[in-house]
C-alpha cells in the first residue's frame, strides 16, 4: 500500500515542479506531449488486455448463452458435470488451506530464519513456476505410481495415489505452492522485526506473537496469495490430467471435463462448463476484494 501511495505522490509532484519552470510555454508543450504519450500507453495496455483476455472471455460467454439458459442449465446439471464441479471444489478445499499454512511457514523461514543454504529454499520454492505441469504429473507417477519408488509399499497397504484423489491433491498442491509464500515474503520483509520483538518483551510467546502481531500485519499479502492459489488450483490442467487418468465421473475435474466435452464435439457442454469455471474464478476474486474492503474500512492502516 505504501508503494502505491508514493507512486501517486511522485506522479503529482512532477507536473507541479514543472509549472514553476521559467520556460513556461515550453513546459506546457512538454506537458501536452507527455499527456499524449500517457494516453497512447494506456490505449496500448488496454488493447493488449482486450485482445488477450477480454475478447476470448466475452466470446465464451456469448457462445454459451447464444441459445438461452435452458441448454446451459441442462449441460451443467449433467451428473458428470456436477461431479467434475464438486471434485474441483473438493481439491481447492484441501489444497488451499494446506498451501496457505505451508506457504506462510516457508515465508517465515525465508524471511526470519537464520540458516545456511537459505537461497536454496527460495530456489526450490520457485520450481513449480519453472517446471511444466506435465513434468510434475509425470514425476508424480514415477514416484507414487504402481511401478514407482513407493509403488510396492503403497499397494501393499491398499493406498492408491495415482489415478485417484491423493495424487490429484499432490499435483494441485505442487503447482500452486509458491503463491502464498511469494506474496507473503515481501510483506514480512517490509514489516521488519521490531513489532515482533516488542511483543516478545511484553511476554508473548512465539504463537501469540504470530497470531496477534505478525499475522494481522501480513494478512493482505496472505489473502492475495490465497486468491492466486485458489485460481491456480481451480484451473490446473496439465499435472492433474496425467495423474488423474481422467476417469469420467470419477477423477475428472472441471478443466478436464471442459477438455473432454470439447474433444467429443459437445461444444455446449464445453462452453457451459468453461463459464462455470470462469465464474468460480471471478467469485473468488470478487469475494476477496469485498472482504478486503470491508475489513479495511474498520481501521486505518
Amino acid at each position, binding site marked *: 500500500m505504501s508503494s502505491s501511495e508514493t507512486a501517486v505522490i511522485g506522479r503529482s509532484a512532477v507536473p507541479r515542479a514543472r509549472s514553476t519552470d521559467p520556460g513556461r510555454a515550453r513546459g506546457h508543450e512538454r506537458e501536452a506531449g507527455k499527456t499524449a504519450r500517457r494516453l497512447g500507453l494506456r490505449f496500448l495496455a488496454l488493447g493488449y488486455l482486450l485482445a488477450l483476455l477480454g475478447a476470448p472471455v466475452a466470446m465464451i460467454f456469448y457462445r454459451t448463452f447464444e441459445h438461452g439458459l435452458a441448454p446451459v442449465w441442462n449441460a451443467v446439471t449433467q451428473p458428470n458435470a456436477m461431479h467434475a464441479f464438486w471434485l474441483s471444489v473438493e481439491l481447492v478445499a484441501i489444497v488451499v488451506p494446506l498451501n496457505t499454512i505451508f506457504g506462510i511457514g516457508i515465508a517465515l523461514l525465508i524471511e526470519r530464519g537464520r540458516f545456511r543454504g537459505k537461497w536454496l529454499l527460495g530456489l526450490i520454492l520457485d520450481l513449480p513456476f519453472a517446471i511444466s505441469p506435465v513434468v510434475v504429473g509425470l514425476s508424480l507417477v514415477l514416484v507414487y505410481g504402481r511401478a514407482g519408488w513407493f509403488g510396492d509399499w503403497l499397494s501393499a497397504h491398499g493406498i492408491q495415489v495415482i489415478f485417484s484423489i491423493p495424487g490429484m491433491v499432490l499435483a494441485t498442491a505442487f503447482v500452486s505452492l509458491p503463491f502464498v509464500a511469494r506474496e507473503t515474503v515481501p510483506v514480512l520483509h517490509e514489516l521488519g522485526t*521490531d*513489532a515482533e*520483538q*516488542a*511483543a*516478545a*518483551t*511484553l*511476554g*508473548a*510467546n512465539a504463537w*501469540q506473537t504470530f497470531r*496477534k*502481531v505478525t499475522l*494481522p*500485519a501480513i494478512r493482505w499479502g496472505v489473502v492475495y496469495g490465497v486468491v492466486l492459489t485458489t485460481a491456480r488450483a481451480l484451473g490446473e490442467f496439465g499435472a492433474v490430467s496425467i495423474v488423474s487418468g481422467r476417469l469420467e465421473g470419477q477423477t475428472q475435474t472441471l478443466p478436464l471435463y471442459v477438455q473432454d466435452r470439447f474433444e467429443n464435439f459437445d461444444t455446449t457442454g464445453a462452453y457451459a462448463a468453461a463459464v462455470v469455471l470462469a465464474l468460480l474464478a471471478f467469485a473468488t476474486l470478487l469475494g476477496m476484494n469485498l472482504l478486503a474492503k470491508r475489513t479495511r474500512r474498520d*481501521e*486505518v*492502516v
Partner: protein
Amino acid sequence: MAIEVHNVSKRFGEFVALDDVSVTVRDGALMALLGPSGGGKSTLLRIIAGLETPDEGSVSIGGQDVTHAPARTRGVGFVFQHYAPFKHMTVYDNVAFGLTVRRAPKDEVKERVEELLGLVRLDGLAKRYPSQLSGGQLQRMALARALAPRPEVLLLDEPFGALDVQVRGELREWLRRLHEEIHVTTIFVTHDQEEAMDVAGQIVVMNGGRVEQTGTPHELYEHPSNEFVMSFVGPVNRLGDALLRPHDIHILGSGQDLYSDGSAVEALVRRVVHLGFEVRVELTLPDGRDVWAQVTRETASELELAEGQILAARLPPPRIFA
C-alpha cells in the same frame, strides 16, 4: 531490580559491537548509556532485554542469571527507537497487549490501561490507531505499553531521538518525574550528552564497543578519565595535547595592569557570536593558535567585546591525557 553485566562481548560477523563490557546498575537507578552511534550502546541494551545473546559473558537481573533466558521471561519493558507500535491495534489494545497475553481478567486490564493512559496523558485517545498519533504521542503510548505488565526494568533505545526539540525537552522532564514516581530501574540509550546529563543520575560512556567511563554527570564533566570522555561530555578547546573547556577561559579586560601577575596572556578577538544567554568569543593567542571562550551575556556587555580588540585572558591549567 539491580542489573549486572559481566564481561560481555558480541560480534556481528567481523564487527565487534561489544568488547568485554561490564556494567552494574543499582536497583531503582536511572542510567544513561551515552556514546556515538556504533559504540555498542543499543547492542548492550538489547542483550539486557534478551533480544540478542552475548557471545561471551553473562547478564543478571535481580541477582538471577538471565544470560540465556528468552526475552519474554525477563520482566523487562522495552521502548524501541521507532516505537514499534502494533499498527493494526488501537492505542488501548497496544497498551493492553502485555496483560492480555498473560490472560489477565478483563476488568483488571481495563483498570490498568486507563491508569497508564492517564499517566502518559493519552486519555481520550484509547480508540485511535497508531497512524493517527503524533510522534510524541506514539512515544508515550510505547512507554505505557512497556510499563503495563509492571516490569522490573525499563529499557529505552534512543527514546527521544526521532522527536523535535521542544517535544524532546518536555518528554525528558516527564521521564525524570515518572522515574521518581515509579522507581523502576531504568536504562536509556542516547548519543546526546546534554540529554544524558539532564535525565540520568548515572552515565556510562561507551565508545568502540567498550566502556570509557562510568559516573555521575558531575564526575564525568569535572573528572573525565580520558580525552574521549572529556570531548564527548562537553565542548573543548584543543591546544596540542592539552584540552580546555571554553567556559574555563576567563576574559579579564583590556587594562595593562591585568598582565602584572603573569597569569594572563594577550588574545585577539576574532569573532563574537551571540547565542542567547551564552556568548561565544573566538580568540587568537599570541602564538597564533585559535581557541574559543564561553562567557555570559553580562560579561560580554561589561567588557564591550568587539572584533579586533586585544584583551587579557587567563587560561585554565590544561588537562593532558596520556
